[in-house]
């Protein structure tokens, strides 16, 4: 499957040319960061959060609003908000075992309500051009892509090389067994959500830096794109199995297909359709592959 995709992509004229690659890299970076975050939630056995898209938007708003105090404080505020707000949901899910999907919907409604109250539905623009380091390119790569790469590497190191990461796998695989093995469920789940919030807030900040503004519409649909990437990558929807690297692969597969379609002259609309069909196909292939092994 991957081989076909790679060959297909490379055989497409113009695919390896720098502008389209750079555009691809930038566009997948935002979804990629959210997907890396979503991976932690899915792996920990809590399926998905419907609130990450709104958290991304809210972080972008707070970042933009915080810029009046300088870039540093703005970063801290944006990241801190996304991290803590999501971690609070994780606490409810982990400590009381509240249903993760209901909690995320409730959080979504509260977040949208607060944002509406505070901004009156307005966009917040960046007050100055101080965001250059967060956009542009570095070593020929879009900065956003470097952030995604760093997020994925850090995420994977946490999952594979720390006790906490192994605990996420254990809790996602079998919660009762994890408890009997001495794993603190609420710490692990809260930690997973905390990381998810952090990576989502990062995406929000990068996205608002690129557009020079923040608003609540920025993150619409990111929840579904992110969970699609997680599933296409082959992380099990009921948790316990998967990795950030797989998710990265999932993001790459989806985006590569979109670019190939674009280069072959398919309309934007056709790309949406193909994305859906491909997500469906890949999920089915994963299931077939699992049954044969």
């Amino acid at each position, binding site marked *: 499957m991957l081989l076909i995709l790679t060959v297909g992509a490379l055989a497409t004229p113009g695919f390896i040319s720098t502008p389209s690659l750079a555009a691809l890299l930038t566009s997948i970076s935002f979804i990629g960061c959210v997907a890396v975050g979503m991976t932690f939630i899915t792996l920990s056995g809590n399926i998905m959060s419907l609130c990450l898209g709104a958290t991304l938007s809210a972080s972008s708003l707070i970042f933009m609003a915080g810029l009046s105090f300088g870039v540093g404080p703005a970063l801290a505020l944006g990241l801190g908000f996304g991290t803590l707000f999501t971690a609070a949901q994780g606490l409810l899910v982990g400590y009381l075992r509240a249903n993760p999907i209901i909690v995320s919907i409730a959080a979504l409604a509260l977040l949208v309500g607060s944002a509406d*109250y505070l901004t009156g539905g307005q966009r917040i623009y960046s007050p100055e051009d101080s965001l250059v380091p967060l956009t542009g390119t570095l070593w020929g790569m879009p900065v956003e892509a470097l952030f995604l790469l760093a997020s994925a590497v850090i995420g994977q190191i946490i999952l594979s090389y720390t006790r906490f990461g192994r605990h996420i796998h254990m809790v996602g695989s079998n919660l009762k067994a994890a408890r009997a093995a001495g794993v603190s469920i609420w710490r692990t789940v809260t930690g997973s959500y905390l990381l998810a919030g952090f990576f989502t807030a990062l995406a929000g900040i990068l996205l608002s830096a690129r557009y020079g503004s923040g608003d609540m519409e920025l993150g619409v649909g990111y929840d579904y794109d992110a969970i699609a990437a997680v599933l296409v990558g082959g992380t099990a929807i009921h948790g316990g199995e998967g990795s950030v690297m797989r998710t990265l692969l999932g993001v790459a597969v989806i985006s590569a297909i979109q670019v190939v379609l674009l280069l072959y002259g398919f309309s934007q609309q056709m790309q949406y359709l193909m994305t859906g069909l491909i*997500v469906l196909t890949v999920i089915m292939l994963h299931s077939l592959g699992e049954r044969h092994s």
Partner: protein
Amino acid sequence: MSVFKTITRESIRPFAVLSGAVVTLGLVDRGSGNFLSVATAFSVLQLFSTLGLVSLALGLSLVVRGFDLSVAGMLSLAGCVAVLTGATHPWLGLAAGLALGLAAGTLQGLVMTGLRIPPLGVTLGGLLTFQGLSYVLTEGQTIAYPNYDLALILTEPIMGFLSYRSLITLGVFLIVALVMSHTRLGRDVVATGSDPEASRIAGVHTDRILIGVFALSGFLTALAGVLLSYSLAAASPVALSDVLVPAAAAAILGGVSLGGGKGKPLGIAAGVLTLCILRSGLNAIGASPFVHEFATGGVLLVVAILDAPELARRLTSWRLRASER
């Protein structure tokens, strides 16, 4: 204390929350007539017609432990198909939309039972595919439906607060409620969601039930989509897709549990009405939109915490530790 217990009893809770919402808004309104008016009732029922069937579809899928994400895509897709095919013959558009919903739902059911894929994965693919398909069909544009008369007929007030559209919606709710409560099928649906393995051992064809529920879910959503597009005289791939969160919220308020086996059509109707009353009611008394979001979020959060399985254990544990000291 017993009053509290009655209110929190699960079968009654949706209706208690609903009456709570009506009473609260009525008190805030204090007889100024903005909230307790026929016009508000009409707008509540119009909202109900949009959200209700989607919520019913999603709720039924939740009863069998699925989570039909694809309803968000099907709502707009069915609308687009109906508008495109039904320009001259509305019935043809309706039939095309409904057939599509039924077929798509059946197909999703077949995939999840045949390949043993969790419903969420399949319907996520369905959501993205349906959305993509409606973008392709409309080329990303809002398309107008030339038959304005139909739109007027569907949304014309009957007795002040009803309309053909809301009557159809209410009728469908009634039929589904009767099927669920009075037929063997309804019983098997609840059994399948309650404990799939146990039901299979007892002799229920759980796979057929699952396929049937997802087919029905596609059908109901398609009906909602067609009615909505006809009454707006327009279809768009974008504008309607933001229905999933309120639909899920309404189903959960209506007493559906994500663990399966719990949830009744009339409860879901009460849940949807609660949300619609909050939205139109708050609108009518001049509250800002964010109040509605806050109210929805707050109620859901309380439901989530009250339903949390560890809540009782945590409380017992705290009490014991406190009494030890």
